[in-house]
């Protein structure tokens, strides 16, 4: 297969309409089979060998749930299923990380240990679909759901192409029943889905990929930058990662909507969160709710002594950090958020009457989240020392501090306006989405204005995409690496 089926690719622009048309032309009884084949084709476009891994995980979890439900040693089958699926994930994603970490530790105590790594391919989406299989076997064990009788339906739940490689991490009780209902073409749903795809593509191609150049300029060449340029790059990264990931999610949800499926919401205006806990209720909702339901609550959640509650928070966020990647920077990021959550829990418990104005809460939360993004984006854990030392370098001359930062990134002139306009548009849309739904509001506009908006949105995306492809600056979706 020649073309990776990235959402921002011409291959996907051909693939999705083909699947859409085939889906509604086929009689209902063949649709799930078609979707399954299409989903495996989608996945194999990255690497044909990946099909072996996903099928293995699917078969093991399917059979594991069956045996769990039969009632004979359910705990053993649960542990076996979890161990196998997580084992595959750990092996492919974390083997080299742990091997090198252990080697470094042993060498630091003067033990001459050779480096041992394996040249493993990182299966795209493995973190996402593994968690879906875990949801399934655990929910069957807890008797929340019945095991799915048809293997193909279950396989489709795991491999459904819109959410296969970067989520949302769907719960079986939400998605599996949708494969059993007959989908009649819903015009309103399809139009909404198409608009969502266009808006997601705009966020990814126009905003995220444009900002990526500035972020990479600073974070990949830190010693060449000091002062305000680091703050600007961090701010841009906050927008980049949000637009990249939520853009992807919008395309995923929109694609599913075209086919009549409803995937769970994954983002809910996270940068307007009023606290760190509120942020995590709005950011990557499918993952944070997964960790809450399958790690935090089973550990005892907040219904334990304060110290155990803090432990539970730190463990949950540590695992969340590790889930994002096999690197100390992600571990540090996870622990950072864990610590912030502990502090908030402490403050909430001991200063119940304390309530800051909403605007201040939002600003403070955003700044704290950006602090975490510094850790997330760093190439090396040691970069933190440089960043701490030089971020406020020159701040005693505020005007020079700001101007130098803008000049370093080439934003002192028209480029600054060129960057600001899409960000302003994003802010306006997010503020509207806080209380309402901008895509539904667009429907109420006069027809000619609506069409001008659709055309401008679509062709701005097309032009930006072509420009980026020509300059070789188009970026992969960031969460593909997780």
């Amino acid at each position: 297969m020649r073309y990776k089926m990235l959402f921002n690719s011409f291959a996907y622009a051909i693939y999705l309409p083909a699947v859409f048309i085939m889906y509604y032309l086929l009689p209902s009884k063949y649709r799930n089979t078609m979707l399954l084949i299409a989903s495996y084709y989608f996945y194999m476009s990255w690497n044909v060998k990946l099909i072996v891994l996903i099928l293995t995980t699917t078969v093991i979890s399917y059979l594991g749930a069956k045996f769990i439900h039969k009632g004979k040693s359910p705990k053993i089958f649960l542990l076996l299923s979890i161990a196998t699926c997580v084992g595959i994930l750990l092996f492919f994603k974390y083997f080299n990380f742990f091997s090198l970490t252990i080697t470094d530790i042993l060498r630091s105590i003067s033990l001459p240990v050779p480096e041992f790594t394996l040249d493993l391919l990182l299966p795209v989406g493995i973190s996402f679909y593994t968690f879906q299989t875990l949801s399934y076997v655990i929910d069957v064990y807890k008797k929340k759901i019945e095991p799915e009788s048809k293997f193909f339906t279950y396989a489709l739940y795991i491999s459904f192409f819109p959410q296969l490689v970067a989520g949302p991490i769907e719960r079986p009780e939400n998605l599996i029943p949708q494969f059993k209902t007959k989908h009649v073409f819903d015009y309103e749903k399809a139009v909404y889905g198409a608009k969502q795809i266009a808006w997601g593509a705009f966020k990814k191609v126009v905003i995220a990929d444009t900002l990526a150049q500035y972020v990479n300029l600073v974070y990949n060449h830190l010693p060449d930058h000091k002062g305000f340029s680091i703050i600007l790059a961090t701010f841009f990264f906050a927008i980049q990662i949000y637009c990249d990931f939520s853009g992807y999610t919008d395309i995923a949800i929109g694609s599913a909507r075209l086919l009549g499926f409803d995937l769970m919401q994954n983002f809910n205006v996270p940068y307007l969160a009023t606290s760190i806990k509120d942020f995590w209720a709005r950011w990557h909702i499918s993952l944070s709710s997964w960790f809450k339901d399958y790690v935090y609550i089973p550990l005892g959640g907040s219904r334990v002594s304060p110290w155990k509650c803090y432990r539970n928070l730190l463990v949950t966020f540590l695992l969340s950090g590790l889930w994002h990647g096999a690197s100390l920077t992600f571990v540090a990021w996870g622990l950072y958020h864990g610590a912030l959550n502990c502090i908030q829990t402490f403050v909430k418990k001991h200063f119940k009457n304390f309530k800051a104005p909403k605007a201040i809460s939002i600003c403070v939360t955003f700044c704290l989240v950006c602090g975490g993004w510094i850790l997330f984006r760093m190439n090396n854990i040691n970069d933190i020392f440089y960043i701490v030392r030089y971020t406020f370098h020159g701040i005693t001359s505020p005007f020079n501090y700001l101007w130098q930062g803008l000049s370093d990134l080439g934003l002192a002139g028209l480029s600054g306006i060129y960057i600001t306009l899409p960000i302003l548009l994003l802010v306006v849309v997010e503020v509207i989405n806080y209380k309402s739904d901008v895509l539904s509001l667009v429907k109420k506009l006069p027809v000619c204005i609506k069409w001008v908006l659709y055309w401008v949105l679509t062709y701005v995306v097309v032009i930006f995409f072509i420009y980026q492809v020509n300059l070789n600056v188009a970026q992969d979706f960031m969460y593909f690496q997780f």
Partner: protein
Amino acid sequence: MKRFLLKISIMFVPLACFIIFIGLFEVNNYFGIYKERTLEDHLISRMKAFERDPQKTILLGDSRFARFTRKGCEKVEIEQKITNMAFGGATIYESMELFWWAAEREKIEKVIFGLSYYNFNNIYTNTTFARYKKLNNNTIAYLFSSECIKGAYNNFKSKAFPSPEPQVNYKEYADLIYSVCEKYKLNDDAIEELKEIVEYCDNNGIEIIFVTPPMHKSIWENVITPLDLYDEMEDYKNQLSQMATLYDFEQADNEISSKYGEDFTDGFHFGVSSKGLFEYKKQIYQLCGLI
């Protein structure tokens, strides 16, 4: 669903119009729609023509060789068996990279390489080959490239609003060439790279022939003589003749430039439909054993 598909189709009406416009006016015959191998002597059109119909004999060089197969120039039958890969504005580096690109694809037997003192000016060190190679390999990138869009637009403009041929002004052209050659220095690096091509040709049984082009007397009078470039011209030609066969038309008393002087449209180029161009290329084909 029909209503939905209709609305989606309307969304892409501007894109469809764009593609139709390009299809009608695209100048490089990129998609092989036209019978003519190439419509314009641009690098992309040459690459596409070679990919579609590679011949064992190729021409390399700049606009002076490119005109041999332009529409309006009387054809010589042997040109059916030649791929003209010369293009307007070709630097020596671009011509050399084009040779390597072609040699990778086809077993070439003969290369006729048009070179002049002008190509060996040290200021011409640029090459855009990598970009055009990418456009050649990527249809979508080409479709939306400035080369494709500008080319189509200019083609449309010339057909919709034809403009008269510009008046010949040898002095103005010579002054332009003078300004470029004022700090002329022979590009020794390019000559060294050319030696690698000659060595490759020798090792692979490819006959390589260098040809220098005739020039209008205005160039000799207003550029070569005032700047005294005779030593540099002799130097590069000596080096070329030591490497391979050289047919030297770049002389002040050359028969072609003397007899057909009025056929020049500027100091370097013969008119496309002129007798001078036809006789010049015919002589080259005869000397190279093609007719």
